[in-house]
């Protein structure tokens, strides 16, 4: 409160005459403010010192290039999944071959020093665990039940016999193959086609396939 009215204007906002003088700015020297943003790449006022170029530096440069090249060739360099832009090219086959040759190599590590989830066998263990509950779903009872219903259906609607055959095939496939999407599609077809819910009982609802959920190591949610 006491500060109000003293000095010129808000003392916090602009500098008083005395203060300006203390800063080394004399009257009339206050240059207008520059509104334009500074250039992105300002011009260098002084030319920088030259970098050393001797045998040692050359050696280091070569060694560095070699090292990086080695890393790029090694499996330590993690590559993206091969992307395609939807255009088939003659060279695709060779590119894929080259990529796959690099991809299949596993980084040579001391696995004992790694956490279990990073070890290569960890994947197999997980897959086995995921595969284990599958036979439960397709036990003898379920198959019998399903076959019964299919029989009924065949009698009821002769027209749709072809389609159900298809479905049956997928049933068989399901034991070996776990292509989720295809099955999901068929599942939907069932529901739309005849409105019964038997298919829902039968089909895996996807819980066991979800990679994310069967990991216990998701950690706490922060």
């Amino acid at each position, binding site marked *: 409160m006491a500060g109000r009215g003293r000095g010129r204007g808000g003392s916090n906002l602009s500098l008083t005459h005395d203060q300006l003088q203390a800063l080394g700015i004399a009257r009339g020297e206050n240059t207008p403010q520059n509104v334009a943003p500074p250039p992105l790449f300002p011009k260098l006022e002084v030319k920088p010192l030259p970098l050393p170029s001797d045998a040692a530096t050359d050696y280091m440069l070569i060694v560095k290039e070699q090292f990086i090249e080695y*890393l790029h060739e090694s499996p330590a360099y*993690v590559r993206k999944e091969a992307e395609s832009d939807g255009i088939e090219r003659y060279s695709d086959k060779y590119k894929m071959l080259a990529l796959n040759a690099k991809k299949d190599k596993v980084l040579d590590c001391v696995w004992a020093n790694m956490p279990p989830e990073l070890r290569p066998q960890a994947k197999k263990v997980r897959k086995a665990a995921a595969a284990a509950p599958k036979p439960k779903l397709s036990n003898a009872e379920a198959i019998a039940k399903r076959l019964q219903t299919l029989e009924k259906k065949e009698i009821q609607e002769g027209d749709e016999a072809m389609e159900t055959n298809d479905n049956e095939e997928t049933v068989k496939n399901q034991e070996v193959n776990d292509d989720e999407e295809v099955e999901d599609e068929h599942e939907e077809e069932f529901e739309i086609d005849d409105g019964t819910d038997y298919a829902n009982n039968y089909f895996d609802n996807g819980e066991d396939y979800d990679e994310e959920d069967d990991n216990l190591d998701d950690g706490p949610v922060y």
Partner: protein
Amino acid sequence: MSHQMGRVVSAILERHFGEIVQKVGDDLFSYGGRPIGMLVRHTGLPRNQVVDSLRTLLKFDLATFEPYNEVVVDYKLLPENVLLMIRYPRYLLQMKSKYGSEAEMLVEELLQQATCTATTLLFNIATKFKDDKEKSITILGLKDMFISLVTAGYIQQAPVAELKEGSEIPTLIPVATIVPDLDSRALLQAMNNGHINDIKDNIYWRVNYDRFHLDFRDEIMIKAITRRIDENAGELMRFLLEKMYLTSAPWAPESSPLCAVELRERCRSAATDKPLLHQFVDQYLKVLEENGGGFVRRVGDAGSGQFAVRSRHAALQLVLCALEHCVTERLGSKAARIFRSSNLERLIVTGKVEGKTLRGRPIRWSNHISKELEKPMNVAMHEATEHDELIYTKKYIEEDDIQKNAMLVNKECKQLTYKLMEEHFISVQPMRKPASAGGLAKAIYLYHVKLHNVAYTGLEMCYRSLHNVLRRAAHERSAHARLVDKQRRVRTIVHGMRLRGEPQRNIDDVEETLTPPELAVLQGVEKRLKQLSTAELELDRNLFIFKWYFMYPYVE
């Protein structure tokens, strides 16, 4: 752990391991420890790629992990180790110049493998150069070199995994290095058989960066002394450092006292190389003590003089030099003068007491110091040289005094001072006087250099330019990727044709697929990339000095 550092780390990962590892590294850098599930969710990468990246990071010791509970593992990035990746060429150069090409090969292979058993290492190199008659590399020679490198501490044993009860997650425990006893006969037999399945070897080794850093430090100190005084003094510094390793910890801020008698003996044994040094040891010691930038300090007179090597002080001096150089190059020599005059600390630390005046400095400065300390000049100077810490608290300077000391025109001086302040080289401490009746509250502004903070500024500058260099090089590379690729292909084809002995005309035809303008562009790119790479190495040298300085805790 600053933003700038994160950017450099990210760029280095990208350069060495590709975009995916970079993404994972970024995430780890910005969030600290993370379990794998979180990484998958946040980076949006497939799980197997995250796993691959983590493997890479762990393998090259760029990240660590620690169990969060029995099943979940937290991963942490080690940004300091990532920064070391640009120093690898320097390690190799060191090896090559000090121990020859065999040692270089060993270290190179070990750096590439990150961790490796001795047998595999030796076997791999020996098989690689089996057909190379010129170099005549034998597995036994390599073995001897390996053992001498382990003995010298350049290679150390990698930490060993230990399983705690009830947990599957290993804990890495560092182990003391024991010089290995490798069976020559088994190695030779393995070479004959062409595989190493018969040899059981489960001791893993890795490169000990710290040992290399000690070498670099010694080299810097010796070089500094050589440039400041002469080669004999540099040699003396080398002897001092040699002796230091015997009695004190290698990174000790100040070594335990070293006896001059021993040094003299050492000089006598080197008398044939450096006769002058042997002749004038005492004089050289005196000069080193007085004019050696405070690298060496006389701590006692017992046994004809005792000396201590001050690594911490050397780091401080070198950082100061680097910063001064920085100011000179960025803002000109006048700004550097202001920087120097606001940095009283330097004056007192390096100034010598000779009677009551400061040798080689204007007398005005010393008066100023005594005024500042409110003590008589000679007492102040004496105390100052006894313990530098005293000065750390009193190093403020008024604006007018800057002007006087830097001998600049008022306006220019102020402009440069503010410029320096803007770039965080000097800081200001306002001292408010109680408001006198009616008038404005007056304040005195005291300027000073907070060396620790300024060193951070320097470090950040290094990071920033390093990042710029890396980014620019990456841009340069990606912009001309197609051309470079073409050049490489032409080269391989030509090489193949030469091997097959095809006529020169055909080779020329292939070579001409690269048009002259393309060649010109390629040459430009090559030159620029080389320049950027060199800049990277040079920046790393600066970075090393800053890191050395920050190794010692800050004394207020």
